[in-house]
């Protein structure tokens, strides 16, 4: 793309390798002042690596970087700040017991700022810092109390502190690495408003993302990477989701989700009057009743923390129940109340509940174990050839099958799953759960953090299970996906069922209203 201006940042022919893995290969990228640029690409396409080289975390093997036309060398985050570049990472780097202001001035050499001769001997000037922080907040519309301790903050507040920290240090080129991954839709809106203010004030913003609707909502231009290579830059207004996807994935991708007609629909799980309290006595589920049918996808919508997690864990037998029934209906019509049984007893009954929890590496899998041992989590209790000993042959065969069928990218079956990318981790988990031959499949935020290809693999797997006659319960956060995938949608609001709607006829607005129906203001 031609532009007569000198780019604020120009990266030329950047290559970076890690061992045998090529993270970036001959990438060229121009960033212009006063623009918001989206850096779009699938997981593992080298977006973060590229930006890490700009912010001094990594040093390129080859290629050059120029700022305002001058070649520069950035070999540390400090160098990057000297050139006005600041990056907000996905994982926050804040000291919990410090206040916002203390965190923000951490590592800033006030001595040199104040012209003191002996370093380390001037008093920390938190008061003045707080004043500057308030000015920054006023200017861009941030909502930060400089005196609030970090441990008292929500995730979005912590993120705000990270952004203010970068601005305080005087950055005018900000890089945000997947900033919305941890935010609710409302918080995302707020963040975008702030970013627009920053743009209006002449700052340059790079936002790393793989969500198309965010690209469309916020950016002026979008640069696309694929497998470490630079594909091209588009003007956001002149492109569309389909074109961006094709460039990102490299081939035509169908953007609508299949929804086969359910057949042979029978009740499988009848939840009646389910009430659950958290350990500290808070009411998490309040008199929840619904039925999940075979051959059907029951979507569960709601603002995060409205009882979705507790609902699934209660059905899986992992959550103590205060009152209510969870009736499991077998094919021949016999009924069992799962609420009275522990997960082991449920398993012993031959009820096969597959559960893909929200916390994949912390609950569904063991991060430090390899693929084979993770497959064994579900099967190790089965009788092996020698009593008391584990059988690794069956899980190994299963791991091979999952890697093969779901196209899991892994160096070997002996690789610890923490080394896999998010999409591959999820394929391993879903693959294992489906291999149980379940009658009920529950999943929480199954596509969170996954790229387009991996997401569609998961949707396909869910639909396959549905056609097999499995009762699928799908907790989702993206309303568009829920509306395309689910046969019925149950909306939770503050632990109560605020409505059950038909996925084919409901519209986004209707579901959105149900999500905030009970105690609307308090929730928002």
């Amino acid at each position, binding site marked *: 793309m031609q532009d007569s201006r000198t780019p604020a940042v120009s990266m030329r022919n950047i290559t970076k390798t890690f061992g045998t893995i090529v993270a970036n290969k001959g990438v060229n990228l121009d960033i212009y002042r006063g623009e918001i640029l989206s850096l779009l690409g699938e997981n593992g396409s080298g977006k973060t690596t590229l930006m890490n080289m700009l912010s001094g975390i990594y040093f390129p093997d080859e290629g050059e970087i120029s700022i305002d036309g001058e070649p520069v060398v950035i070999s540390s985050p400090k160098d990057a700040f000297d050139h006005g570049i600041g990056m907000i990472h996905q994982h926050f780097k804040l000291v919990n017991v410090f206040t916002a202001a203390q965190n923000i001035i951490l590592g800033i050499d006030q001595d040199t700022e104040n012209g003191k001769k002996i370093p380390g001997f001037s008093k920390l000037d938190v008061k003045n810092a707080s004043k500057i922080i308030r000015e920054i907040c006023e200017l861009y519309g941030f909502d930060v109390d400089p005196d609030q301790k970090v441990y008292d903050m929500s995730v979005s507040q912590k993120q705000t502190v990270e952004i203010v920290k970068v601005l305080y240090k005087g950055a005018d080129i900000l890089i945000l690495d997947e900033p919305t991954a941890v935010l609710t839709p409302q918080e995302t809106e707020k963040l975008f408003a702030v970013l627009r203010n920053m743009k209006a004030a002449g700052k340059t913003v790079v936002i790393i993302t793989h969500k198309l609707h965010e690209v469309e909502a916020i950016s002026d231009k979008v640069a696309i990477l694929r497998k470490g290579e630079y594909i091209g830059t588009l003007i956001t207004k002149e492109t569309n989701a389909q074109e961006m996807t094709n460039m990102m994935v490299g081939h035509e991708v169908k953007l609508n989700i299949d929804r086969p007609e359910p057949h042979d629909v029978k009740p499988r799980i009848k939840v009646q009057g389910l009430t659950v309290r958290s350990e500290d006595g808070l009411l998490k589920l309040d008199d929840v009743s619904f039925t999940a049918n075979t051959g059907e996808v029951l979507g569960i919508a709601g603002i995060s923390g409205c009882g979705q997690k507790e609902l699934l864990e209660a059905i899986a037998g992992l959550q103590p129940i205060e009152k209510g029934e969870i009736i499991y209906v077998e094919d021949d019509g016999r009924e069992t109340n799962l609420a009275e049984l522990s997960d082991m007893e449920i398993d012993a009954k031959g009820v096969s509940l597959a*559960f893909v929890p929200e916390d994949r590496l912390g609950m569904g899998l*063991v991060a430090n174990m390899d693929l084979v041992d993770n497959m064994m989590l579900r099967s190790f209790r089965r009788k092996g050839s020698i009593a*008391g000993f*584990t059988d690794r042959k069956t899980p190994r065969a299963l791991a091979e099958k999952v890697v093969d069928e779901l196209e899991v990218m892994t160096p070997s079956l002996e690789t610890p799953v923490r080394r896999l990318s998010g999409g591959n981790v999820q394929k391993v988990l879903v693959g294992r759960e489906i291999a149980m031959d379940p009658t009920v499949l529950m999943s929480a935020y199954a596509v969170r953090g996954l790229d387009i290809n991996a997401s569609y693999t998961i949707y396909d797997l869910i639909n396959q299970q549905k056609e097999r006659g499995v009762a699928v319960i799908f907790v989702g956060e993206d309303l568009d996906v829920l509306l395309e995938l689910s046969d019925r949608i149950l909306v939770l609001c503050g632990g109560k069922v605020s409505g059950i709607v038909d996925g084919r006829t409901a519209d986004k607005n209707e579901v959105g209203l149900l999500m905030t129906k009970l105690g609307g203001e308090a929730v928002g």
Partner: protein
Amino acid sequence: MDNKVKEPLIHITKRKMIPKKQEWAIRLGGILAALIVCAIITTITTHLNPIAVYGAMWEGSFGSERKIWAMLKELAALLLISVALTPAFKMKFWNLGGGGQVMAGVLATAACMITLADKMPSGAIMLISFVSALFAGALGAFIPAFCKAKWNTNETLFTLMMNYVATQIVAYFIIIWEKPKGSGKIGIINQQTQAGWLPEIGGKQYMLIVIVSLIMTVFMYIYLRYSKHGYELTVVGESQNTARYVGINVGKVIVRTLILCGLICGLTGWLLVAGTDHTMTTTIEGGKGFLGVMVAWLAHFNPLGMILSGLLMVFMAKGGSEISTALGLNSSYGDILTGIILFFVIGSEFFINYQIHFRKSHGKEATDA
């Protein structure tokens, strides 16, 4: 603007997995480097020929048959405790009470041998002392494990404090059973009758504990690697949430594993009193409860590796005391050398996990500058 175009001199990057051979080469290199540094420091500070010092250290462990057996006994006891601690550590239950659990076994064995001396045949005493030692050791480990499982108490402090409790109880009973009166010592128990003494295998007093320690090492290796229990405790150690999710009863696994841990510690105490020392002192365990922690860590919780790391520790301790007597060096000198060697051994782990790149010179920089 700063016009100096300069690549940083050194980069440190995390390594991908490296082959086992290379890993061991790095470790061996670390030990060699440590020996060289020790040699230089020895020459500077003591003006002794470092080869002679190393020779003396070697003598300390391998100098005579008696010394070899003494070294093997130390190694066997250390190995037993390290192996006992390993399943707890794999479960991320930081059991620092190995010493105290051994002392519990020691006390139970001594109690049986003293109080039952004239009442039953030697074989029966052996059996009863065996059972009570195992029970005492298991009880010592069960108490902190139960509290952890039930109320999530801090196991590190709990087990640490249990060491002092065990030592004090032993000290109390030493005064009760002291012989001769007023000596503050127990002396050799049943010296005449040898009631309750374990038999010597092949005429070697220390053969039994060596054999048992090797059996337990192999047992633990298999238990951790291939048994369902081993798998469960690893899952609990890695993520209690995952363990609950797949239906593992976390509390049960904690208690079960610690009982195993205590059983082996109790066994060690039994072997020390009935098999090798035939007496009870407050120092019979000799700090091996703590040393065992280091041995287990150095071997990355692989029981077979602990034979090597345990040997290193015992060799350094024996060698250290030998150079202080043979060459008239201060007794702390051995500790200094041990410290240096450990520093290099642990330091070599850094080079196994990370790679250091030095700046490559290529002509392009000149044109950029």
